């Protein structure tokens, strides 16, 4: 960079402006990074508990469902679950966290989850489906939070990289260039003064 730079006062002024801009950008990006980190930690703390709860609920659902399936005849299972009546509609809305568009899931649930008669089905199937129905809310919330966390983590990585580039590359390079131009200009100034002094000495002699 130093080889290509024009060591002029105009360039010096331009670079000083760039340094000011880069420093302001660095400060803003640092604040953004800190805020995203804070939000991310907040979401991650919630996710950890939520995920444990959802995993427990789904495990329980699977356990019940397996017991129900094993105690029923295959043709009865097929008949019972062939036409589900529960409908789940998910709508995605976007909210902005530190200029990151994160999804917000809105669910609409209609119909009954128990969609079969009682004579040829197992009671464990009822328990499994009710447990699954209860897990829906947490499952959707978990999906929403995990997506938010993933998007914020990506943004955090990018912001941190930008902050690091500004802090460790761009601003030091600009300072170095300014110092270089300043030195060049000072040297040119000294050259000029010494030349003028020499000319003065010649004229006086």
């Amino acid at each position: 960079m130093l080889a290509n730079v024009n060591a002029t006062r105009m360039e010096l002024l331009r670079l000083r402006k760039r340094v000011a801009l880069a420093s302001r950008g660095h400060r803003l990006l640092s604040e953004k990074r800190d805020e995203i980190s804070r939000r991310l930690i907040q979401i991650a703390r919630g996710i950890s508990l939520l995920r444990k709860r959802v995993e427990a609920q789904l495990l329980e659902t699977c356990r019940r469902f397996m017991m129900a399936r094993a105690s029923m005849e295959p043709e009865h299972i097929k008949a019972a679950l062939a036409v589900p009546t529960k409908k789940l509609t998910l709508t995605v809305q976007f909210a902005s966290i530190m200029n990151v568009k994160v999804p917000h899931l809105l669910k609409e649930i209609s119909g009954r989850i128990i969609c079969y008669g009682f004579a040829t089905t197992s009671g464990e199937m009822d328990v499994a489906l009710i447990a699954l129905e209860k897990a829906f809310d947490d499952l959707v919330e978990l999906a929403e939070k995990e997506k938010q966390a993933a998007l914020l983590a990506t943004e955090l990585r990018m912001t941190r990289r930008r902050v690091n580039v500004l802090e460790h590359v761009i601003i030091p390079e600009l300072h170095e260039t300014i110092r270089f131009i300043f030195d060049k200009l000072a040297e040119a100034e000294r050259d000029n003064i010494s030349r003028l002094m020499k000319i003065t000495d010649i004229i006086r002699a």
Partner: protein
Amino acid sequence: MPQVKLRQSILEFSTYPPVGDDDWRYAFATARVRALETQMLPRATFQDMANAQSFENALDMLSAGQYAVPKGAAGFADIEEVLLQRRAEVRELFASLMIDESIVELFKSRDDFANLRLALRRALTDKPVGADYSPSGNVAPEVLEQAFAEENYAVLPGYVRRAAEAATINYYQDKDVRRIDYEIDRLQALHNIDEARRLGSIFLDGLFRTQVDLTNIRTLLRLKFTESEQIDVFLDGGFLEPAFYKHGLDLGYEAIGNLFFATPYQHLVEVGAGYLASNKSFLKTEGQCDRHLIGLLKSTAQITAGPQPIIAYLLMKEHEIRTIRLVLTAKKNSLDTRLILDRIA
């Protein structure tokens, strides 16, 4: 009838309905079934399987018998295949031993009703009817598919046609698919009892009425658990009237057993309701219902020759296959041994 009552053992006369009289046309068939009954898995084997350390150990316990899985079998699908094959063999044997063809058709009609349930659900919700139905019924899957495709129900047997019409009308009351099942369940129970009476079989009549009672007991507990608003789903034809169960819906779990104090079901309801209240599970209820039904089937031991032991063998064998599937599924998925033991109690 008095003769029949004398045949009941002292302990069981108030627990199980009468099993009827001997029919010497079935002397050979009964003898054969008695011999085959000795090969059935004892209860201890299921307990050992449940207590086995791993799925493989549980499977090994079956390797010496008819449920041995062929070498190289990879997954649970192969085991399921073996179980379905054994079930088909038992049903074939039942059909070959049973002299009264009407009884064979009656038991085959179980698959017809199951197929009808699936076909109607698909047809009424505008889904392809398909042909993936159980082939063990009186109606071939292709015939059922064709009947629904052409909307020509005349090719179906009377009981299937009547059930299809009634279930369709019931469905259109509020377009709830559960109503299809409720109606088919109701008509299936009535069909079974009517046929049993037409055949003059005291045993079948008692068996189907007991099945209706056990279904109603399970339904009662399921309705209470799910807090369902549907109360007209109890089946007619059992020893107890549907109104009796509706009364039970207003009682708490701890009081529900006392409602049945004058019936043979008090113990199973008490145990089932208690387990449901404490564990939020129907495993014990279903286990107790199975046990009660097996008790009735075992009471046919007093019959020297007749269709009763053959019917009992079919149902006990189907129960055995279901129990094997249950234990193996539970072991395969590392479920708690206590749950398996609660279910197979």
